């Protein structure tokens, strides 16, 4: 390709290698100035500045700003050190463990928030591997297990009806699934370990409060017809080891954040789902269940609770009889719907879609006890703690309010 040829005078004074002091413009040549020849050692000129002093001041200032930001994150925003962001690498780590695990969980954010892995283990002696992903259609995850010849255990599929029966699209978990094979490489694993170590000590390292996410939240719908960043789902959860999610305490205590979170579930609104889609979903699910069973595994579906306000929207688009009941009948799999669990009634669902931290333990207790009745793969331990009831998690002031308004 054509290129300018450097003037011979400039070439005469050309300097190669590093050079203290900035060169006049035009004297620092690049390969584009020297066509068809061996390129000499490049020139790097160092501007005459007290770089060490500047660097030391920058280091101190950045440390100060970061300390201030960490303080603000803890006091003003309400973030906690030890809240480890979930990530595709973290998910891949658990997914690899699932191959040899007796019980694994897939699904969307509801089963993720609403399952207390410690309680599960206290009751059965088995700690399930949590591989559900927020904002993700559980069908895609079920299919990935069906396609994995290494999995022979019990797969618990937690689902929110409108997510599971949506016509297409994996959702947020698409990237997790696509990058699965890449996330066991040394670079990814070491990054995960260092990141986790840092997050145990620093609160500000929270993906929901990154600069670019935060900065655009001033836009409260300035452009009609677009998804305003303000209306997006903000931080709802905290995560600890083994991808144990639970509700961020600020959602339970801060009325503004709770109202905002509820508002975000407007995305569930829409017309009723056509019956043909439900039939197709059931057929696909039945095939996935058949393949897992053929290898000696099994599948059980679980429908965690949603608040009456949201349930109304969900039932309006896909009533239980046309979704959940069809799925259980069509896959010949066992299922646990929260409607059928007495101890899962009236639980606290602060933002209408996910249980409060305490009530997640109560719901886990209820569904695990039912699981042990449905499958021989799980047994209630002789030293299992006594059953929990809604009274163990619902504050007394709330308990006095009728269930329909309890959210």
């Amino acid at each position: 390709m054509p290129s300018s040829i450097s003037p011979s005078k400039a070439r005469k004074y050309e300097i190669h290698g590093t050079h203290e002091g900035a060169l006049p413009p035009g004297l620092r040549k690049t390969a584009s100035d020297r066509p068809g020849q061996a390129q000499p050692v490049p020139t790097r000129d160092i501007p005459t500045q007290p770089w060490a002093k500047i660097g030391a001041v920058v280091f101190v200032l950045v440390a100060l700003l970061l300390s201030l930001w960490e303080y603000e994150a803890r006091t003003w925003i309400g973030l906690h050190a030890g809240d480890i962001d979930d990530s595709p690498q973290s998910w891949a780590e658990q997914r690899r463990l699932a191959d040899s695990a007796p019980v694994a969980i897939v699904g969307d954010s509801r089963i993720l928030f609403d399952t207390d892995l410690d309680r599960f283990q206290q009751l059965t002696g088995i700690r399930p591997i949590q591989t559900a992903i927020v904002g993700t259609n559980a069908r895609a995850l079920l299919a990935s297990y069906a396609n994995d010849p290494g999995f022979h255990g019990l797969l618990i599929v937690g689902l929110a009806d409108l997510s599971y029966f949506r016509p297409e699209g994996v959702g947020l978990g698409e990237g997790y699934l696509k990058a699965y094979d890449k996330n066991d490489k040394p670079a990814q694993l070491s990054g995960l370990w260092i990141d986790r170590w840092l997050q145990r000590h620093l609160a500000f390292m929270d993906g929901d409060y990154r600069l670019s996410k935060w900065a655009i939240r001033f836009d409260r719908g300035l452009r009609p017809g677009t998804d305003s960043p303000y209306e997006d789902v903000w931080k709802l959860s905290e995560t600890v080891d083994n991808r144990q999610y639970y509700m961020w305490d600020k959602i339970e205590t801060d009325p503004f954040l709770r109202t905002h979170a509820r508002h975000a579930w407007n995305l569930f609104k829409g017309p009723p789902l056509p019956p043909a889609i439900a039939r197709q979903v059931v057929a696909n699910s039945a095939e996935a269940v058949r393949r897992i069973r053929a290898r000696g595994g099994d599948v059980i579906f679980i429908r965690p609770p949603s608040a009456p306000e949201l349930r109304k929207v969900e039932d309006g688009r896909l009533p239980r009889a046309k979704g959940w009941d069809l799925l259980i009948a069509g896959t010949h799999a066992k299922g646990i719907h929260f409607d059928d669990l007495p101890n899962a009634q009236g639980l606290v669902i602060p933002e209408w879609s996910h249980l409060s931290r305490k009530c997640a333990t109560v719901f886990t207790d209820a569904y695990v006890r039912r699981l042990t009745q449905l499958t021989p793969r799980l047994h209630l331990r002789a030293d299992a703690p006594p059953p929990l009831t809604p009274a163990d998690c619902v504050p007394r002031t709330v308990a006095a309010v009728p269930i329909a308004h309890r959210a």
Partner: protein
Amino acid sequence: MIFNSLTFIVFFAIVLALHNMPFSWHQKKINLLIASYLFYAAWNPPFVALLWISTVVDWWAAQWMVRAKRERTRRLWMLTSVVVNLGMLGYFKYGGFLMSNFVEIAGSLGILYHPPNWDIVLPVGISFYTFATLSYTLDVYLRRSAPAGSFLNYALFVTFFPHLVAGPIMRPTELVPQFETPRRASTNQLFFGLALLTLGMFQKVVLADGFLAPVVESVYDAHGKIPGMLDSWVATLAFAGQIFCDFAGYSTSAIGVALCLGFAMPDNFRFPYGAVGFSDFWRRWHITLSSWLRDYLYIPLGGNRHGPARTYAALMGTMLLGGLWHGANWTFVVWGGLHGLYLSAERWLRARFKGFTPGRLTLLGLALLTFLLVNVTWVFFRAKTFAGAGTVLTGMSGLAAKPEPLIAAGPMIFALAIVGGLFGTHVAMRNTTLEAVLQRTPALIIGGVWTLMAFAVLVEQGQGNAFIYFAF
């Protein structure tokens, strides 16, 4: 590993510490070589074997080339190097592409062929280190340079981690001499190198990944939604900013990292969006690739020495292959082809209006026109399919039927501010260097800007997104 990862911070701290310990120069070079292999193996350890093959084959090819007495033997060794390097590149990068094209052509002839699923994993950076090692044997063959005097120096040239996976594409004559004498950064070099590393990370983590990528994705990955004129232009402008900040960010970081170790690496970008015309653009954008293609493809194809027709053919051929270098997809070929057409048109216009000397305002207008036309080519670079490119181009032309608004106002305002700032900066600095500007800037301002950039990088955190050019 990638520069914008926590693993790299730990890795670099160890390498820097080792490089400043009182080891012999030979030992320090071995340390750098081992570190570079670890840097590469962190992605996919088995692919280090490809680096070894490339290193050993090209080392011996050059050795035998020099010892050969007959021209034919020299050519044979040169061809061996070319075949081995391009063979690996062809298999890993273009194997699937060639097969899918073969299947389509066979299908159009009525022959149904179902090839086995190859599942070829692309070794990261293979296009970069293949071109770097090829330049070694080609320079020796063209008698532009002598072979490296030591295998260690040569192996370190191939694998030196700052340039290994995404350039700048270095020539042996640029780097091997630097390994011949002990190098250690002075205090000024070290801190200026760290400042460049911060600038590169700011471009990548904050601007490219944080603010620009989501805007681009909302249109280019809109899953069937039709963008209108505003959305199509904003997304494409945002991509122009994203790809610059991503790739120039990597190059700036690489230069900074090398400088911290006492090595000089060449400029890869020189304010390209301030270019006036397309030959100017290619002297400023990905300089080490464009000069590589010029020296080893355009000039051997005849360059401008055999009349206009041959020149235009060489130009188009170079740019089409340059497009294909970026990815195994016909969209990249079209991207290269468009640049070839632009360069040809410009060459024709320059010959026709030889005496034309533009004023300042005209120059600004021409820079803006160049920038807008470059943006049209980015559509083919970013869109994964021709249908996708067609949708965005239709939107840009204002002819989209029933378009939907896709980009919210907040992200749009940030994207336009960043891209506007980039364009203005490039135009303002087209005849100078960053170093020259820093030389006359008060230290207080440099410190303040450096602090803000470092703080923004840390608060943005980043998600460890790979650099776009890693896929090439």
